[in-house]
């Protein structure tokens, strides 16, 4: 029996040839920066500089510059931390998991998504250091280094320590994975370049020679790293969720957190990828590579993860009621109806209701709607972490200690700092690195481009 597969939509449109791919991607790197890029970059760097004032104030004066108090020991700091770590997840998921599942559509978005991962993790890692009362000591005391204090080791029971391992592993693997992928493309740019650029990209490409054996090694390393990175997609946010799940605070002490956090992370990560890709494809005119199919597929992932998150929210409430634990019940009633009800309902609206709009084909294939909703989802996911952290802490066991949290200007400044850092890095990446994985796109070109097939 002859099986005929249905005709698939081409992954790269516009009848691109191999040369077109090289040219379209490399031209961004080779050309002069556009005015638009300069403006964007300066805005990002300016935000970074303003944010740096807040960071300096925090390190110089103390954590008192933030809005925290005796009852609420974490608020924006850890909210931002979890939020940025979550955003990072999409990159790893796209490049590693989709690689293992041989999802070819990933090829044109994985580079940028991975870059986003790395920058997001850098931003995230700012907070565990900055939120310490004594970061100058904590930055290395939190590591299990041999020392002459006794010898004094870290506390392996502490979820914060697990975080240190989780985040550092995640960052290293992601960085290596991303860089390995960049090497053939750097070599492509090197081969087209002259002068100083040739030297620099020559260095960056580690003497790539394009030989079959090199390609073979490249493929296997990619596969191994993908294999390594895949469990990390699950483990990092699982461990981050342990910060809360292993505690005694009602609203934190919840076994549902690991899967719920992972789903939320993928949810917000895809939203962030969409936000960035929609801008990039427009600015760099890469519509043929990042097609509507990509956007639609990512929107479908958002529907799924958004729904998982929604179910998790409802499950939490059910369990609070079902457990019979009064403190837990109060914590959840307080979330929905207490002084921070607005944060809770913002979260519910942004995360549970808004992604359901993607059931409509019209909405999920609309660039503008997708862009708007991707931002809404990220706002929602920020609120999710805020709700978990602040509303659980602000009214826990003893009513005498109940308090409110109001962010200070420094809180906002530090958050801005990470935005500045993220976008500064991203714009530098977009200008100087190939934003699309040329080598991998070329590998899918044959099956999708009419011209190449001829």
């Amino acid at each position, binding site marked *: 029996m002859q099986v005929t597969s249905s005709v698939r939509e081409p992954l790269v449109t516009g009848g691109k040839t191999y040369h077109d791919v090289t040219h379209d991607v490399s031209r961004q790197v080779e050309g002069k920066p556009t005015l638009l890029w300069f403006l964007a970059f300066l805005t990002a760097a300016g935000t970074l500089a303003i944010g740096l004032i807040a960071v300096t104030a925090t390190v110089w004066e103390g954590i008192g510059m933030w809005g925290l108090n005796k009852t609420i020991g974490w608020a924006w700091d850890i909210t931002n931390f979890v939020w940025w770590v979550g955003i990072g997840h999409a990159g790893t998921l796209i490049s590693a998991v989709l690689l293992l599942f041989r999802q070819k559509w990933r090829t044109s978005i994985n580079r940028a998504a991975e870059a986003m991962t790395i920058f997001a993790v850098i931003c995230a890692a700012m907070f565990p250091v900055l939120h310490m009362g*004594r970061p100058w000591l904590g930055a290395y005391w939190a590591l299990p280094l041999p020392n002459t204090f006794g010898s004094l080791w870290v506390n392996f029971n502490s979820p914060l320590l697990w975080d240190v391992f989780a985040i550092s592993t995640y960052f290293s693997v992601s960085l290596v994975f991303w860089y390995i992928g960049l090497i053939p493309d750097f070599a492509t740019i090197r081969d087209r370049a002259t002068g100083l650029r040739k030297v620099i990209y020559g260095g960056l490409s580690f003497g790539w020679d394009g030989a079959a054996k090199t390609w073979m090694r490249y493929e296997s390393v990619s596969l191994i790293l993908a294999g390594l990175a895949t469990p990390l997609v699950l483990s990092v946010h699982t461990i981050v969720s342990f910060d809360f799940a292993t505690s005694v605070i009602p609203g934190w002490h919840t076994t549902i957190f690991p899967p719920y956090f992972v789903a939320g992370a993928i949810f917000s990560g895809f939203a962030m990828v969409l936000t960035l890709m929609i801008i990039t494809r427009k600015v760099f005119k890469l519509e043929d590579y990042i097609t509507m199919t990509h956007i639609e597929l990512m929107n479908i992932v958002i529907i799924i993860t958004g729904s998982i998150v929604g179910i998790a929210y409802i499950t939490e409430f059910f369990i609070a009621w079902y457990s019979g634990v009064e403190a837990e019940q109060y914590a959840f009633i307080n979330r929905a109806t207490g002084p921070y009800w607005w944060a809770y309902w913002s979260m519910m609206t942004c995360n549970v209701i808004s992604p359901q709009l993607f059931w409509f084909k019209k909405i999920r294939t609309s660039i503008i709607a997708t862009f708007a909703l991707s931002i809404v989802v990220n706002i929602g996911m920020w609120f999710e972490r805020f709700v978990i952290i602040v509303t659980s802490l602000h009214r826990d066991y*003893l009513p*005498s200690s109940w308090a409110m949290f109001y962010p200070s200007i420094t809180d906002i400044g530090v958050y801005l700092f990470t935005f500045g850092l993220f976008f500064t890095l991203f714009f530098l990446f977009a200008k100087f690195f190939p934003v699309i994985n040329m080598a991998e796109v070329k590998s899918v070109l044959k099956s999708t481009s009419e011209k190449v097939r001829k």
Partner: protein
Amino acid sequence: MKENKKTYWKGLEQLSNDPEFVKHADKEFAELPSSLNEDGSASRRDFLKLMGFSLAAASLAACEAPVRKAIPYVNKPVDINPSIPNYYASTFSSGGDYASIVVKTREGRPIKIDGNELSPINKGKVNAIVEGSVLSLYDKQRLTGPYIAGEKTDWATLDSQVKSKLASAGSVKIVSNTILSPTTNKALQQFSEVFGGAEVIQYDPISNYGISKAAETYYGTAVIPSYSFDKAKTIVSFGADFLGTWISPIEFAGQYAKTRKISKEKPEMSRHYQFESNLSLTGANADYRTPIKASQSGLAVLALYNAIAKKAGAATVSAPAVEIAHLEKAANDLWAAKSAGLVVSGSNDPNVQVVVNAINELLGANGTTVDFNAPVHFRKGDDARMNQFVNELKAGQVGAVIFYNCNPVYDFARGAEIAEGIAKAKVSISTNGTMDETASLVQMVAPDHHFLESWNDFEPKKGHYSLGQPTISPLFDTRQAQDSFLTWSGSTSNFYEFLQLNWESEIFTQVETGTDFQEFWDRSLYNGVFAITPAATEALAPIGDVSAAAASVAKAYSASNTGAELVLYTKVGIGSGAFANVPWLQEMSDPITKATWDNYLTVSQKWASENGVTMIEGETSKASITVNGKSLLVPILVQPGQAEGTFGLAVGYGRTKAGRVANGVGVNAYELADTSKGFVNFDITAGVEVAATGEAYRIARTQTHQTFMGRENVIQEATLAEYKTDASAGRYHPEIYKDGEFVKPSKISLWSGHQYSQHHWGLAIDMNSCIGCSACSVACQVENNVAVVGKQEVLNRREMAWIRIDRYYSSDAPADDLRGMEVASENPEVTFQPMMCQQCNNAPCETVCPVAATTHSSEGLNQMTYNRCIGTRYCANNCPYKVRRFNWFKYHDNKDFAGVNVAQNDDLGKMVLNPDVTVRARGVMEKCSMCVQRIQAGKLAAKREKRKVQDGEINVACAVACPTDALVFGDMNDANSKVSQLLKIKENNTSALKEVNEERAYHVLEEINVSPNVWYFTKIRNKDKNEA
């Protein structure tokens, strides 16, 4: 002098005259070994070595060692051993208040005040103000020498001027607060004789003139009686805050607590009725509290008199009818208790006090619970004389006025008139230690020593004496005021000699045993107190007539006053305001309102809702209060339990010249007090207008949620009747389902459990005897160098207190109405719960610290290692009791906090720091350590003497200060320790989990099984049924 033939040599080389040594003997630095190049030139290595050396030498020389001003003793004083504290018995006295104290000094510096256990009055206990007063010794505001017309001068100049001016001044008046010192009185008498009968006028900021005036009318002797609350079965108080601020609160709190301790063996407690306008500390502890208007208070007393008189068969008096809840019940209980009943009134109206005396007389209580035969000398100020003095001063009839350690310009109702009148006196002198509101207006200031630098004696009660001795040599060029008086009256002896002579002639002669005065003196000084049993006298019989007083009361009070009423009151922490410049007291959270750094108008919830005033967190608004033309703008604090139509305002604030801590904090309410009736009246029932202005304001409160949300895992309480039938009444027994059955939470644990082979420290807290006075909180602050953070940081909810008193109001809402339960009842039941680190055996903080900065000790303590802390605050988040405190900023040596945290910023203030406790750096977490430094010191002392630590030898600062012994600390491994006895821990076992058999004892949040080492005892209310 013989020639010194000794030779000193640098080393054996020199002695043996080693040729190699001799060669280099004149060179300061040893020659660097050369790597012996052929040509003898320097090699690259030599060059680097030299360069390295020069660099290191140059940079070391550039680092100048900081200049420290600590000057070591050249010869060690006999009784000062570094790191070993010395204790001196002395006495605290201010404004007619008194406490016999023991002062702890370290390296010559007084650093802590505890109560003197030998004192029969305060029995080893103190209150917050006494605790805090040690910091006033190191107040930068203190004068460093005498002043004439605002210019610093020397004592000789001052003395000659004073003498010459006084001689020609005419009438000389000495204004003072109550003088408890018999020898001072004698010195003043001597002074008075020299200066033509100079008169001593005594007044007190917080007046109890009404009581002595009434005693004069009713018993013929103007005295304040001694009270024995411990003998009372039924206590009825009309606005007398006897646990917090009335006459001798430390003494009364101790007595009262005795009647509130309850156990299976003694299931009895006193019943306490309180009728008052403001919710006072005492009212908060009452079994039945009825909010009444100040204008009704006199009639309430009359109604009680009539009810009792009816029962006693005595004549009733005519009184307008007044509807007051629980009054009839109170009368029944009083009559049942008879001589074990006690009625007290906070009113300063002599007529009301006469009726109160008459009630006590009807009950036969005079001689048991109240004793006019054993008068006390506290607060014996004479309002009438003071009033008259102000008139004289204003009229320019006073030639010379000497303000002897008092500040009437600030703390007398007619302060403004005194300020005006001072200029009219030819001579004005003050002995005040600081340039306060009064001292800044006088011509000459002869600053007195601080009381911790002075010799003094006191007679707080007839036959009870105590001595004050210096615990440090004077810090500044001040002079004891009594010495000044003696000098001005031409005496050549100093006050110390004068004191000794007086004791030898007056007191020693009354001593029956003992022959040697020196021995008697040394013993008295060592003990701090000395008492003579006075000869038994016959009970005073009433000579006065109650009906006249009753008629005046009936006329002066009304059952239905529709106008606003203002009731001025004294705060437990600030008192009269004399110690307002002590930031510990300013930051002490008020036991009732939980507010710091302010006074405010307390309004009823009804008034607030009618006037649209809300209070969310600290956000409130201001009101203008006008009393007979005088207007003040004050923030509003919505106070459950405030009688409708009345408003409360605390005195002791609004200082303008107290110093940088207190200046400008709050408003001065003294000026609203009324003196028109001949006594200082804090209950202003006419001419009061209050209007909300809507101007936004923030009051810094340490607790902003007022109710306990019906959480039985936090507050467990029962009524006495319930307790009698079931000792575990009110207990909440959480159970968790496991393997088919419900078990106690302690049966389920991840942990294998600690073993404490030596000690297992524990703390038992009786919520029934904790009155909420917060003496523990200040004691802890002093002992543990806890930082003061100032109003803004309290507003940011970042106060540092290691022990706090959680104050919860009851709510009328049903249990399922969570919103409703956030609102306190109109007249709530109040519960106080001291809360500090619970030293959990399964501590949630310990597992989460990434760097193991908080760990468990082998004695059951949860220890905090500041040096290791990196400040992630995870421990604080994970603490279910929220007792961990973070150093958000650098609070020491930081100009931003220098104005409030004086004990950790200026050189003078730092002298009060406890050298045994680290001042914490910024960015680290801190919390109650259960005074681990005291535990360590106690263990070392026992070890040195090769014995076991005895129970009671080690005690935590909070428990030492507690006037009601509500906190009991000890070793739970020792079945004979007091804490084990209380908890009924039978066996000696070393496990962290102890079998506690006391039915009332419970763990807060038992269901999460963090297994604290702090136990709470249920609150028992002596009520017939559960009712608010």
